[in-house]
């Protein structure tokens, strides 16, 4: 399990969080998560592949644009 840097906002119900993750392509992926899947500045995600600069992560939920997996720059990974 990896901690991936994200901007976290409160969601519409108590345990809901809205996470914004910057992808390797520079876009911002939005995903609705439970509080247990997030920290103050990160989300929990699983690495599934890696290349020279980027890591492919699988998110705990599908993003608003329909992706379960997004490439992020490896600098976005806070702890492995």
């Amino acid at each position, binding site marked *: 399990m990896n901690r991936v840097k994200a901007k976290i906002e409160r969601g519409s119900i108590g345990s809901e969080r809205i996470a914004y993750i910057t992808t390797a392509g520079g876009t911002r992926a939005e995903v609705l998560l439970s509080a247990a899947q997030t920290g103050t500045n990160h989300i929990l995600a699983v690495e599934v592949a890696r290349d020279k600069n980027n890591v*492919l992560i*699988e998110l705990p939920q*599908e993003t608003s644009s*329909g*992706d*379960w*997996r997004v490439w992020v720059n490896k600098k976005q990974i806070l702890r492995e």
Partner: protein
Amino acid sequence: MILTDREIQTFLATRQINIKPKPDLVRYSSTSVDLTLAKQLREWSFDQIEKTRGEIITPGPKLRYSKFRDKYTKKINIPTSKGYALAPNAFVLAWTHETINLPNHSRIAARVEGKSSLARLGLGVHVTAPTIHAGFEGYIQLELCNHGPVSIRLIPGMPICQLIFEMTFGTPEKGYSGKFLRQTK
């Protein structure tokens, strides 16, 4: 038993599942793979429906679906840039961009299901017929319906549905006949 991403990729590599074009790594989740929307869809021809108001379809052996479809729907090529705005309560027939083949002997069947990101907007992708049977080959037809209050823009190539693969308990009868039909001593 549902196949995980690793098993799906193994089955693709050994051609026990065939998906063309092959999905990119980002199209997988732990237990499914996304398929994308093709450029063509069929929308209802309301002029024709108005002309034949009162007609009742009788499902059964006398129904010629292809004639029914050609009479009541028209083919649309979705503009890549503008997309197709699916109005609230609208229902169209669409297809996946990818073709699927599940060889009988693979002992694999699948289900096509919606994606939560689109479901939250109100988009349904099938009308109670999600099963992709062992032996299936072709594009997957989608019955897209907007159950939400706001129009949804459909763009060719967008992830539109997901496939969940399941192993069958045994080999279907037709799998045996296909596999061993020309076997000689």
